[in-house]
């Protein structure tokens, strides 16, 4: 699985943890909002990359375009000067729509800094 150019801007990498994709984002000035904290948009971007990676993983070898329909992001804690990890969990993968919940955390996955629910339109290659 290759990540889009935007993942390079965020400075994130993909790791497989127990066979499932996790996206890892080091802290840096390029993702900071208010001093010392991650910008909400950078956290949302990380969640988005994780959600798309989860859909790509679920589609496996199938060729498809994944178009975002909407996203609802909840910010639970400030993102501090630590590595942030994110993973998407597929709630439902249908013929046309994928619903994904993505979670971002720092030290403890049970204490998320943000989560998002996202809907994607799946356009599968025909023929």
């Amino acid at each position: 699985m290759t990540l889009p150019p935007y993942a390079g801007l965020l400075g994130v990498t993909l790791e497989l943890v127990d066979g499932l994709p996790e996206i890892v984002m080091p802290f840096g000035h390029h993702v900071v909002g208010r001093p010392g904290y991650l910008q909400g948009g950078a956290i949302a971007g990380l969640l988005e990359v994780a959600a798309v990676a989860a859909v790509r993983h679920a589609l496996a070898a199938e060729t498809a375009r994944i178009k975002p329909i909407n996203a609802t992001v909840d910010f639970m804690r400030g993102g501090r000067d630590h590595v942030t990890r994110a993973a998407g969990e597929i709630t439902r993968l249908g013929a046309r729509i994928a619903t994904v919940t993505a979670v971002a955390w720092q030290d403890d996955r049970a204490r998320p800094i943000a989560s998002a629910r996202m809907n994607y339109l799946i356009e599968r290659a025909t023929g």
Partner: protein
Amino acid sequence: MDWDPTAMARYLLETPSVAGHGGRLGQRYHAHGVGWIEVAQPWHEDLVGDEETGIIASGPIIALMDVATSLAVWHRCATFVAHATLDLRIDYLRPARPRQIVIGRGECLRVTRSIAFTRGIAHDGDPADPIAQVAATFMATAGNYPRVAA
């Protein structure tokens, strides 16, 4: 000190030592009027989410709308207030056009002591044909928002 939304937006987005993520994305102040403020996101290859189409990823659009709606709260309060985004909902009404600048327009609907309610749109030239619509809420993190006339 008099409230100057242009100076505030430029300070936050265009001062290298301050403008972390927004600076990396290349966002800059665009315009403001009574009850609204706009931030611009120029297209750049780094922002692409789908290499086949060249369409900008949704992350930079959310970052743009987070900044635009945040500025809209301060614009309504006519002062800076330390706050954090509580939640943000975005609907992608249509794809952004590749290589086109995206404008994020934020409006603040109401400010209570602790919470500010906003909405916004992203467009690429015509506000009547938006790319996305957004609803975001913020919470004051150090004390309260000032009293603002309804």
